[in-house]
């Protein structure tokens, strides 16, 4: 079309308005529209990125000319391909990160740009730091200008500016998900400290709104759910700062609301008293607060960690202990029935335990372990300390479980090490010829529980069969006819009450359960996952595990090893306190709610996420509010500690600020939790409807209050820039295995996906909902090499199969699986370089390990896969699947189902989804819509 779009300055698009028969000009990053064609403004005029991107051919690998054409596509067609055929032509956005970045100057420019968050503390939540253009819709040259604007904003009027964007014309931009949440603009002097760490980092605790509405009606007007998403105990990668520890056991707390002292309190009365930031009560400062106990001299109050850091750990004095800190206890329940032995699970598991004995946290030599094997009987092993021989005791009475021996079953790891090593070495061989089918999981759990009940600790269950006898026996209730019908959610509920009542017993005795499930057939993951769910453990599922495939064995050994080595928190309770008039209303995640706001977690693994919905009970008058999460726990090294995570957020009475401060990643995490809960208590369909309606509500609210259109039809579907990715995240949730409409998903896979949706922290959850998609055959030359921030990843592509070229090589990964997609016209040279095979035809699809080859392209691909596996926190080690374009249909469909912007069966494509939303939003100016409100939120 001969549109004026081509003559527009960058940052503008033109759209044909049918009603006025003329072009409408839209400034994409502000949402500003006008009828006059925009002149290139002074700040926009120097425009290096308009010049055609430098050619890469010189830098690319040198293949024969014809092949190169086929291999890389013609010219830079990638950048020119419009992402949406229906959308207006977009001259500029794609330029920025694909070829534009390759020019060295620009690349550096991006790296040097000031991080917009926390001053010098640039900790990328989503890895791939060098590719973190903070304003991807802006050409790089505007960065300076924009940074200046931000500078002025922080100095002048404090607050966030609302940028409206039109969803119809701006397709989702994967890089936006890597941006930090909207900045928190606290009122001046609210914080005692100038430290950039005074507010907890978003990876520990983030709120769906970074400016809290002062009244509930304002919140309701915005329709955005208010909630906290927290991971109080997360792992630290190399180079990340440790959580500071306050060792002098001087813990200042508010007398009334029990808030811990934090950077947002006020010192009054010459520093002798402090005013609580939550309830405004004035408290005395403890006498030893200004005393340095290590050097025995007056200390500097302002240097105390709790006044400078949002995340601190206090060493707790004896008042915080019900009993002395207990040692860490690990009991392994290993299924040795026929199927478990056959799959090689037992051999792999025992080998992994053996190899990781040194990594099990045991700093002061107190850790205790025990091993119980079970099929339809229970096998106990005595591990005499000092001796090298263990003996086996068989208990076949599973109706009334008892321990065959009072001592030597639960033993000290160090003392019984030789016996343990021999046992682990032999265990798999001992049961080599075991043909017993069936599993007495319930009795085995009871036995483990009896053994450790006085101490508490962790039970690790490794089982490959459906529990069939004794308490907790389950039936195979998988019924293909039920799938896809309203009755399906019944399969996601616990089948036997045992797993709930036992979980409560465990929680009381400080016992946590981890489940590793391996069944080749139906295993009722939904029921078994109840135990980890209510005892704060984790579920891992390896469907059709077979250790003779090295990939399976490596994945399990890697994940199991990491779980063993993980320093866990024991005997923990968590409580979230918040400023007056804010109330924690409901809790999602793996724990047991022991009282209205106390969460019991017998053991806290690293990198589990919890979501808490917050209610505004009355008008908030304070200029800012504080959320404080306190986790009282015993470290696995036998020290009682309190981890305190404090987040302060400003309040606002301005609806546009509420919208501008919304954190789409946190909202998506909260919605995932709510959707899963709803799918269990109601029907899967209800949970999908609720998700869709929530999205409609937010859009309707935005349209009614923030755009000129108000009620009635409009050609736009407006949303603020910071919520631009929310629709596609919701679409991703609707298409996730846990929630998707389908009659083909086995209930086990669904239940596991739901367990993941409710326990993954945002960093892992977001790719799980909105996978990453990279193209490898034409990635810029620096990708896959080691850059300033580790391995440089290729720029992510939008998740649509339009981007798949027939000769290409692509990676699609969602944090749980990695697909290496290879097009059917892939040149032999590419296949040779990556897979060491002569041609595409001989390549086999399926689980694989890439060969390490001596050519730069293979090394870069391997490096990218490696980085994909390591860049996130958490223990997951994704499988790598090779998917051939014309390969086996199930695998192909599975890989394609990750491309969520495409249409799949009944599930809409992104454009269809957006137009559905738009239709709904235009209809929804009617009051009948209010019905949905109370249904979901």
């Amino acid at each position: 079309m001969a549109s004026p779009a081509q003559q527009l300055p960058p940052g503008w698009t033109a759209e044909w308005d049918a009603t006025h028969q003329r072009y409408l000009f839209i400034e994409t990053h502000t949402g500003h529209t006008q009828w006059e064609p925009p002149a290139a403004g002074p700040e926009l005029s120097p425009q290096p990125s308009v010049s055609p991107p430098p050619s890469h051919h010189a830098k690319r690998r040198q293949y024969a000319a014809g092949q190169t054409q086929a291999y890389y596509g013609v010219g830079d067609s990638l950048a020119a391909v419009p992402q949406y055929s229906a959308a207006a032509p977009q001259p500029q956005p794609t330029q920025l990160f694909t070829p534009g970045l390759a020019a060295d100057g620009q690349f550096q420019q991006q790296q040097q740009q000031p991080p917009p968050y926390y001053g010098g503390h640039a900790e990328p939540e989503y890895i791939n730091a060098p590719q973190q253009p903070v304003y991807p819709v802006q050409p790089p040259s505007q960065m300076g200008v924009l940074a200046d604007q931000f500078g002025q904003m922080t100095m002048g009027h404090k607050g966030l500016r609302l940028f409206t964007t039109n969803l119809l014309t701006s397709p989702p931009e994967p890089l936006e998900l890597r941006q930090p949440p909207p900045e928190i603009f606290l009122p001046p002097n609210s914080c005692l400290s100038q430290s950039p760490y005074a507010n907890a980092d978003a990876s520990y605790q983030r709120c769906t709104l970074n400016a809290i509405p002062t009244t509930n009606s304002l919140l309701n007007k915005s329709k955005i759910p208010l909630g906290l998403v927290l991971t109080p105990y997360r792992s630290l990668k190399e180079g990340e700062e440790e959580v500071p520890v306050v060792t002098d056991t001087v813990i200042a707390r508010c007398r009334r609301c029990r808030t811990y002292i934090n950077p947002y309190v006020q010192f009054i009365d010459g520093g002798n008293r402090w005013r609580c930031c939550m309830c405004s009560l004035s408290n005395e400062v403890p006498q030893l607060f200004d005393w340095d106990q290590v050097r025995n001299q007056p200390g500097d109050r302002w240097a105390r960690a709790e006044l400078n850091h949002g995340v601190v750990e206090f060493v707790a004095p004896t008042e915080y202990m019900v009993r002395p800190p207990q040692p860490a206890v690990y009991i392994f329940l290993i299924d040795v029935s026929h199927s478990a032995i056959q799959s090689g699970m037992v051999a792999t598991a025992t080998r992994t335990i053996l190899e990781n004995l040194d990594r099990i946290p045991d700093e002061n030599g107190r850790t205790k372990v025990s091993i119980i094997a079970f099929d339809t009987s229970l096998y106990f092993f005595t591990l005499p300390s000092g001796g090298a021989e263990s003996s086996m005791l068989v208990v076949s009475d599973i109706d009334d479980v008892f321990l065959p021996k009072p001592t030597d079953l639960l033993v000290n790891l160090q003392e019984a090490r030789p016996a343990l090593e021999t046992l682990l070495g032999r265990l798999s061989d001992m049961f080599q010829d075991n043909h017993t089918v069936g599993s007495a999981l319930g009795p085995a759990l009871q036995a483990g529980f009896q053994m450790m009940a006085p101490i508490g600790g962790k039970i690790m269950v490794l089982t490959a069969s459906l529990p069939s006898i004794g308490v907790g026996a389950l039936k195979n209730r998988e019924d293909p006819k039920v799938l896809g019908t309203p009755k399906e959610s019944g399969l996601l509920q616990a089948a036997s009450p045992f797993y709930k009542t036992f979980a409560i017993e465990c929680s009381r005795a400080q016992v946590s359960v981890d489940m590793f499930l391996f069944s080749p057939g139906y295993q009722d993951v939904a029921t078994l996952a109840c135990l980890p769910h209510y005892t704060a453990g984790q579920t891992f599922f390896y469907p059709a595990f077979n250790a003779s495939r090295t990939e399976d064995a490596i994945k399990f050994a890697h994940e199991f090893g990491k779980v063993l080595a993980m320093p866990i928190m024991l005997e923990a309770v968590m409580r979230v306190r918040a400023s007056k008039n804010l109330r924690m209303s409901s809790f999602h995640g793996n724990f047991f709610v022991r009282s209205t706001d106390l969460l019991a977690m017998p053991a806290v693994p690293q990198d589990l996420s919890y979501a808490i919905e917050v209610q505004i009970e009355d008008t908030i008058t304070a200029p800012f509010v504080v959320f404080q999460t306190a986790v009282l726990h015993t470290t696995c090294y036998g020290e009682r500690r309190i981890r305190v995570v404090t987040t302060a957020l400003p309040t606002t009475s301005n609806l546009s600020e509420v919208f501008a401060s919304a954190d789409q990643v946190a909202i998506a995490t909260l919605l995932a939790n709510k959707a899963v809960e709803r799918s269990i208590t109601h029907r899967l369909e209800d949970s999908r409807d609720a998700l869709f309606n929530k999205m409609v509500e937010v859009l309707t609210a935005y349209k009614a209050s923030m755009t000129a259109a108000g009620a009635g039809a409009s050609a736009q579907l407006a949303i603020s820039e910071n919520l631009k990715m929310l629709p596609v995240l919701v679409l991703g949730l609707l298409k996730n295995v846990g929630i998707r409409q389908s009659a083909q998903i086995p209930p086990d896979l669904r239940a596991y996906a739901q367990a993941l949706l409710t326990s993954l922290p945002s960093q892992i959850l977001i790719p799980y909902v909105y996978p990453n998609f990279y193209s490898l055959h034409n990635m810029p030359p620096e990708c896959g090499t080691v850059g300033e921030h580790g391995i440089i990843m290729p720029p992510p592509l939008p998740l649509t199969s339009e981007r798949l070229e027939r000769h290409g090589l692509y990676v699609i990964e969602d944090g749980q699986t990695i697909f290496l997609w290879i097009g059917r016209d892939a040149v032999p040279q590419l296949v040779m370089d990556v897979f060491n095979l002569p041609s595409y035809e001989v390549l086999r699809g399926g689980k694989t390990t890439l060969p390490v080859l001596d050519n730069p392209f293979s090394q870069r691909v391997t490096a990218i896969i490696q980085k994909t596996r390591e860049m996130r926190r958490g223990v997951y080690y994704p499988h790598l699947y090779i998917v051939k374009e014309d390969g086996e249909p199930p695998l192909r469909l599975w890989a394609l189902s990750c491309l969520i912007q495409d249409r799949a069966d009944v599930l809409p494509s992104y454009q269809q989804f957006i137009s559905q939303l738009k239709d709904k939003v235009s209809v929804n100016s009617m009051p009948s819509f209010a019905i949905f409100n109370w249904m979901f939120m």
Partner: protein
Amino acid sequence: MGYAGWLFLFAVLMAAGLLFTAVFFMIMFSDLESDYINPVDLCNKLNQFVLPEHTAHAFLTVLFLISGQFIAFLLNAPLLAFNVRKIMNQNHVYDATEIFRTLEPHKKEIFIKLGFYLLSFFYYLYRMILALVQESP
């Protein structure tokens, strides 16, 4: 006193008993909310009373049916059906793991039951008096 009189006298006593159970449930729930009791104890305690309460109500309803008090029976039938459905779906017991999530619906249910028992108490009382008055002219 004829059989109708005795029947409604019995019904009045039953309704009073059911009324007390409902009040007890209400008190326990508010205890839970204000943290005087933990959810495990609460559920253990309440679950002892769920089945007896349902049985008592079912017994009364059946008694009305066989004694031909159809109005009284029809009044009680919906609640009976509701209780039976709950037992069939096996969600009549309180689940300690979900109690905080389901507290509001539970409270609402108990509140409605309380109202129902109160009304039926007065209805039975009225019918009893009516029966007595009719007997002794």
